[in-house]
């Protein structure tokens, strides 16, 4: 119990307060932006034909969508719904946003976790390799590779990889309908492989740079030399003293990337046809579905806040200095 309390430390209540303020801010901002964009659900629904609707019809439709109310009332009614567990309904499909999210979110989380794993698996050893002989060929090659990976836009890489595999090898698992991990684990993993790889490669690059810089910094620390002076062999020195300390900034970096991934890897989800949270927002935006966009954005913001808390927790695990209240 006490261990957990030290780990969570003093700032938790304050962090929760901050989180509430953040979420409220995000909601207001999304609400405002959605209303500022020209057009509304009616024009999105009927397109040019919307111009032919009679004032009465428009009034009826506005009443149906609930956009005839004053803006603050619209916002508060949405907020009230959210607080009572009602995220609203997607007007087009008639499915509740909660239900849509429940389907999309696991896919996004799975993709994010896999991408982060790929990113760490490539980035951390890459950074160690680059840092092992700074300024030498190995370092330069690794860094050039990572820069290239960072420079290539993921939509290009994704399209290229998908096209190549489908055309040349005839392997395109994403061509069939998407299967969740629970429905068909084997196919699901095949479907996730490419997007995770593409996203992972773009994450690997900053992870690699951070790892390299951190290792070089730590290696110059006095305590590394002191450990050497007590006879610690090279491998143990590298793992227990250098890497252990160098991972601290890497954790922060990874947490940030993880947060972005959870807000939906729009491009990758779109190209590889993965029904994730990013696609859900995209869909809502196209149709100007206020409730869908508004609520999904809130879900994304919640994920972001949670990931930040999680990062903090991991940070406390790897760095005892921040554990003190």
């Amino acid at each position, binding site marked *: 119990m006490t261990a957990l309390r030290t780990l969570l430390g*003093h700032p938790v209540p304050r962090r929760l307060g901050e989180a509430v303020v953040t979420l409220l801010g995000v909601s207001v901002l999304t609400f405002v932006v959605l209303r500022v964009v020209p057009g509304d659900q009616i024009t999105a629904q009927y397109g040019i034909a919307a111009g032919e609707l009679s004032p009465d019809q428009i009034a009826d439709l506005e009443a149906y969508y609930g956009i005839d109310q004053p803006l603050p009332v619209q916002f508060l009614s949405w907020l009230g719904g959210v607080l009572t567990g009602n995220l609203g309904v997607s007007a087009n499909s008639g499915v509740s946003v909660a239900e849509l999210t429940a389907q999309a979110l696991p896919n996004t989380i799975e993709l994010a976790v896999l991408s982060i794993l790929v990113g760490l698996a490539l980035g951390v050893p890459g950074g160690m390799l680059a840092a092992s002989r700074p300024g030498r060929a190995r370092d330069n090659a690794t860094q050039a590779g990572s820069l290239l990976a960072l420079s290539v836009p993921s939509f290009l890489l994704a399209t290229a990889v998908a096209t190549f595999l489908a055309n040349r090898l005839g392997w395109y698992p994403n061509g069939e309908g998407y299967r969740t991990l629970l429905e068909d684990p084997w196919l699901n993993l095949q479907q996730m492989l490419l997007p995770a790889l593409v996203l992972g490669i773009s994450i690997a690059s900053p992870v690699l740079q951070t790892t390299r810089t951190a290792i070089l910094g730590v290696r110059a*620390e*006095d*305590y590394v*030399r*002191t*450990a*050497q*002076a*007590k*006879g*610690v*062999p090279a491998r*143990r020195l590298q793992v*227990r*003293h250098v890497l*252990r*300390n160098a991972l*601290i900034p890497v954790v922060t970096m990874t947490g940030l990337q993880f947060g972005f991934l959870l807000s939906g890897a729009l491009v990758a989800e779109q190209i590889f046809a993965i029904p994730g949270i990013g696609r859900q927002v995209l869909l809502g935006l196209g149709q100007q579905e206020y409730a869908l966009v508004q609520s999904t954005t809130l879900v994304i913001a919640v994920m972001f806040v949670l990931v930040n808390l999680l990062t903090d927790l991991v940070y406390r695990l*790897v*760095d*005892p*200095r921040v554990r*003190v*209240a």
Partner: protein
Amino acid sequence: MTTSPTGAGRPDGDRPRTTPVLSVRDLRVTFTTSHGDVEAVRGVDLDLAAGETVAVVGESGSGKSTVAAAVARLLADNGRISGGTVTLGDLDLTAADERTMRGVRGRRLGMVPQDPMTNLNPVMPVGAQIVEALEVHGLATGRQARERAVALLEGAGIEDAATRFDQYPHEFSGGMRQRVLIAMALACRPGVLVADEPTSALDVTVQRLVLDQMAELASGLGAAVVLITHDLALAAERADRVVVMYRGEVVESGPSRDLVADPRHEYTRRLLAAAPGVARRKVTDVATAGRPTEDGAGGPVGAGAAGPVAPEPLLELTGATKRYRIRGRREPFTAVDEVDLTVPAGRTVAVVGESGSGKSTTARLALRLEDADAGTVRFGGQDVSRLRGKALLAFRRSVQPVFQNPYASLDPRYTVEEAVAEPLVVHQVGDAAHRRGLVSGLLEKVALPTALRDRRPHELSGGQRQRVAIARALALEPRLVVLDEAVSALDVLVQEQILDLMVGLQRDLGLSYLFITHDLAVVRLVAHEVYVMQRGRVVERGEPERIFAAPQVDYTRELIAAIPGQGLAAR
């Protein structure tokens, strides 16, 4: 006994009678730099007998730490041993392979590093770091290793060691961390312990305790000690023999007592004369300041008139209090607690205390970098917290700071000229040509060659940098200069020069100094009046002579007792 190979040694006593446990012969260390090869250590000889303590003394750049690093074969990547031998027992370390060296380091040769704040792995509990030494040398594992580590921590002076075993370095004070490092270095009972400035980063009272405990633990475990230090007084007090290094060479060595009583080499003599614990007072006492002295040098401005009339107060702190809020604590921390302090015009007032005593916060109040939470700070009769606009600007001109680390307080991209001229530019003094002339005058005042005006801080020595900082402080012709540990980071000889400069400038310009330091010995040399601070309060004040002769409170007594080389001063 044969004559020492250094030639500067004495016929007997400078070589141990038994076979040395560590023997350094004609050691040479070369560093490859962008300016070519630099030989940092040139033919050093050193012998260490079992159970003996030998001190290696020298200024920064003398090569003393390089010797330590070379012995452990832990030189920086661009350094190499270019000649000579290092023999530990029967093993030539200069010829040993890396694998052998790994077995030697920590096992037969313990190292205590300089800065306790940076030498422990921050993410590893301290106990585990000691256990690691036992583990890598296969001496103990598991419960047994833990028990030994706890015993070592206790031996090094850490109370409640069994609990503290699992704590992390940041939960320990500097002195405690150094004790951990000492326990770590001695964990495998090495025959030789090399301690490189083990206590330079610590408060004086802590320094004394830690050195006592290190000596006790080392002798208990049978380790001979090489103590590397910049402090000759400390060396003479702690070591059986002293080796004095200068510019990579040993200039003199011998038994501590003889070397101090009768230094043969000119450099040793200068070091001894400059040691603050021994050196002569630089300013005349306040009591005698009214009377004309031999050359009138001591008489501060305005004090030439009759009698010991105190000059007008320039800076006055009355009941000054400063509190800081600390995260996670309800009660604010009182850094400065109802301090009354007066700096008379033309005088030097010193504030002495250890870290956390509130002395630097006092300096910040005087500079109005902070406002007092209670009480007043007056300068020339005006409450400085009320100053706004032009009046504040005028105050800023009149009060100038000089900080401890001139390397950190000078902008690395500014040349000497730009740094010194900056306050003139800020306060719009004259045009560029006029300012150029002023800068030349200022450089002359602080005895810096004009040729240095285009250099940048990294191209200057520590002493030169501090002169630049003083020149910059003088640029606006201030009335008060606040010196926050301004000479603490300097080598003794340089420190002596800067103190002389300060005293000279005070005489010529009638400056007042608020001199903040942890070093009571330096205070004795330059201050007219001393305030001793402890935990935010002034616990004692008075003339330095009186404070040294008859300290009123225990804390002052402790501070005085902790000054190394008491015996030397009494001699």
